[in-house]
C-alpha cells in the first residue's frame, strides 16, 4: 500500500470535519430559511454537548446521564446575562419584581458583564465537574451507580431551579430575552450571526476532540474504559483520567447550553430535565458514541428528526423516538457512522502505525 495514501487517510476525520464545516457554514446558511437555520443552530448546540458525551461515554466509558446539569449551568449563566441585558442597565429582571425583593442578588450582579459571563460558562461547569468527578471517581463509583447518580443530580438541579423562583424564574425560567451582547435577537441578520458562531464553536470542538483522540490521553482514556484496574498498574490513577474527560465533556455541554439560549430565546428547567439529558445521549448513541463525528452528526439527526417527525406526526412521533432507541442500541450499538466506514475502520487501525513508520 502506498504510504502517501495511507498518511492521507490519517487525516480522514479532518476531511469529515471539513465537509461538515462546509455544510454548516456555507451550504446551510445559503439554503435554509432563517427559521430553519435557527433550528439547525439549536441542533448544533446539542451536537456540541454530544461531542463531549462522545468523549466521556464513547471513549471514557462513563455514561454521563446528567449532562443536562452542565447544559443547564451554561444556559442559565448565559440566560442571566441576557436577562439583565433585557432588563436594562439599572433595572432588575421582571420575575424578581414579582416574586422577590426587587433587589438584584449579589451573585447575579457580575453577570451584567459579558466577559464574566463567558468565563463563568467555562469555569463554573468545570469546577462542578471537577468536584463531582473527584468525589465520584476517587471513590470508584462507576457504571450504573454513576449513571443513576448523575441522573439524580440533574433532577435535583432542575427541582432547585423550580423552587428558587425569586432567583431563577422558577418553572418559567429566564424568558423574554431580547438581545445577545447588544444585538437584537429577532433580527434575521443577527440570528444568522448567532448561528454561525455556534456552528464555528462546534467545528472547533470537533478539532479539539480530534487532537485529544489521537493524543496519548486519548489512548489512555480508551485503556481506562476497557480495563480500568489494569490502567492503575500502568501507574496512572484512572480517576484522574476520567475526571479530565468528564470536565471537558461538562465544559462542552455548558457551551452548548449557553449558545442554545439566544437561539431559543429562553431557558427553563425543562431543558435541564432527565428527559433532556437522555435526548442528548440519544444523538450520540445514534451517531456512534466512540467515533469523532458520530456524536455530532447523531445530535444533528436526532434534532432534525425530532422537529420534522413531530411536525408530520404530532400524535405519534414518540413511537419513532422510542423505536429509534431500541433499534439503534440493539442492532447498531456503535451507531450509524460505524456502518458506513466499517471498511476504513480497518485502515484506521493501521494508519497510526504508518505514521510512526514515516516519522521514525
Amino acid at each position, binding site marked *: 500500500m502506498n504510504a502517501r495514501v495511507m498518511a492521507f487517510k490519517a487525516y480522514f476525520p479532518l476531511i469529515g470535519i471539513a465537509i461538515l464545516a462546509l455544510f454548516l457554514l456555507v451550504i446551510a446558511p445559503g439554503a435554509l430559511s432563517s427559521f430553519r437555520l435557527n433550528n439547525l443552530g439549536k441542533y448544533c448546540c446539542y451536537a456540541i454537548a454530544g461531542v463531549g458525551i462522545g468523549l466521556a461515554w464513547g471513549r471514557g466509558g462513563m*455514561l454521563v446521564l446528567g449532562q443536562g446539569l452542565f447544559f443547564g449551568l451554561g444556559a442559565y449563566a448565559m440566560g442571566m446575562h441576557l436577562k439583565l441585558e433585557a432588563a436594562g442597565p439599572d433595572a432588575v429582571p421582571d420575575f424578581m419584581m414579582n416574586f422577590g425583593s426587587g433587589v438584584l442578588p449579589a451573585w447575579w450582579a457580575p453577570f451584567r458583564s459579558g466577559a464574566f459571563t463567558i468565563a463563568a460558562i467555562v469555569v463554573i461547569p468545570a469546577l462542578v465537574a471537577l468536584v463531582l468527578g473527584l468525589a465520584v471517581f476517587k471513590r470508584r463509583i462507576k457504571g*450504573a*451507580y454513576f449513571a443513576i*447518580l448523575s441522573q439524580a443530580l440533574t433532577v435535583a438541579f432542575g427541582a432547585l431551579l423550580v423552587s428558587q423562583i425569586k432567583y431563577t424564574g422558577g418553572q418559567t425560567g429566564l424568558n423574554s430575552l431580547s438581545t445577545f451582547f447588544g444585538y437584537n435577537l429577532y433580527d434575521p441578520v443577527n440570528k444568522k450571526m448567532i448561528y454561525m458562531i455556534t456552528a464555528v464553536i462546534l467545528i472547533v470542538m470537533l478539532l479539539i476532540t480530534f487532537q485529544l483522540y489521537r493524543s496519548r490521553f486519548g489512548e489512555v482514556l480508551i485503556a481506562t474504559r476497557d480495563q480500568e484496574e489494569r490502567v492503575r498498574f500502568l501507574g496512572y490513577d484512572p480517576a484522574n483520567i476520567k475526571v479530565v474527560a468528564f470536565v471537558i465533556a461538562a465544559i462542552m455541554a455548558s457551551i452548548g447550553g449557553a449558545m442554545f439560549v439566544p437561539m431559543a430565546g429562553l431557558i427553563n428547567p425543562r431543558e435541564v430535565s432527565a428527559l433532556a439529558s*437522555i435526548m442528548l445521549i440519544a444523538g450520540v448513541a445514534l451517531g456512534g458514541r466512540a467515533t469523532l463525528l458520530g456524536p455530532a452528526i447523531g445530535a444533528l439527526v436526532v434534532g432534525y428528526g425530532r422537529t420534522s417527525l413531530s411536525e408530520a406526526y404530532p400524535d405519534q412521533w414518540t413511537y419513532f423516538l422510542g423505536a429509534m432507541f*431500541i433499534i439503534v442500541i440493539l442492532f447498531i450499538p456503535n451507531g450509524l457512522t460505524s456502518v458506513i466506514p466499517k471498511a476504513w475502520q480497518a485502515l484506521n487501525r493501521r494508519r497510526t502505525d504508518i505514521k510512526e513508520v514515516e516519522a521514525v
Partner: protein
Amino acid sequence: MDVVISQTFTGASYGATLLLVALGLTLTFGQMGVINMAHGEFLMAGAYSAYMTQQLITNADISIIFALPFAFIVAGLLGLLLEVLVISRMYHRTLDTLLVTFGVSLVLQQAAKDIFGAQAKAVKAPSWLHGQIPIFGYRYPLTQLFILVLSIACVIGLTSLLKYTGFGRQIRATVQNRDLAETVGVSTRSIDRLTFFIGSGLAGVAGVAVTLITATESTMGQEYIIWAFLVVVAGGIGQIKGAVIAAFALGITRAFLTYWTDGSMAVVLTFLLVVVFLQVRPQGLFATRTRSLA
C-alpha cells in the same frame, strides 16, 4: 412531638410506596444487572390493570383483590416479553440496557395514551380502606396502612422465595456464578426469564397500590423511577434488606424536609443526601463482596 409522629408516619408511607416500586428493581437491577427504565411503565401497566379490573368488577371493595394478581401477571408478562425480545440480547451491556429500556418506556407511554386516552383514569379505592386508625394520637390512613402491609408482605414473600425455594437457590447460584450454575444443570436462561417476570410483576403490584395515592395515567411511572433506583443504589445492589432500610430512610427524610422547607427543596436535598451517603459508602448500605477486578 406531633410533627415528629405525623411526619414519621407520612414518611413511612412514602417509603412503603418506594419500597414496593424498588423491590422489583432489586431483582432485575440487583440480581441481573439490567437497568430497566421501563420499570415505571410496568407500574403504569399495573395501575391500568387495576382500572380494567374495576371495569369488569365494578364493586371497588372486591375488585382490588382481583386486581393485585392480575396486575402482577400483566406487568410480569410485559417484563417477560421485554426480556425475551430485547434484554436477552444485551447481557454484559448494562449501560446499554438503560438506553434501550428508555426507548421501551417511551413506546409504552405512548401506547397507553393511545389505548386508554390521555385523560387520567379514576380507580376507586375500596370502602374498607376508607378511614383512619389512631396510632400514637396520629390518625393513620387505612390506604397507607394497606400499602405498608402490602410492601412488607411482598418483602417477606420475595425473601422467602429467594431463601427457601429451589428457584431462589437457582437465582442466587446464577447471580454468583453463571457458568458454574450452568454446569450443575441450572438453566440460566429460564432463571433469567423467571427473575424478570417476578421483578416486573412486582412493579405491577406496586401499580395497583399507587392507584390509591395518585393519578392513573400514561406518565405516572416517571415520578417513581429515579427514586426507586436511588433506593436500590443506596441500599446496596441486590440487597433486599438494604432496599427496605433505604426506602424508609428516603421516605422519612423527604417527609421531614418537606415539612421544614418545601416540596421542591425536599427533592433536591434528599437526592443530595443520597449522593453524599454514597461518598461514605460507595457500595450502599450492604455491600456484596465481589472478587472480580472490574
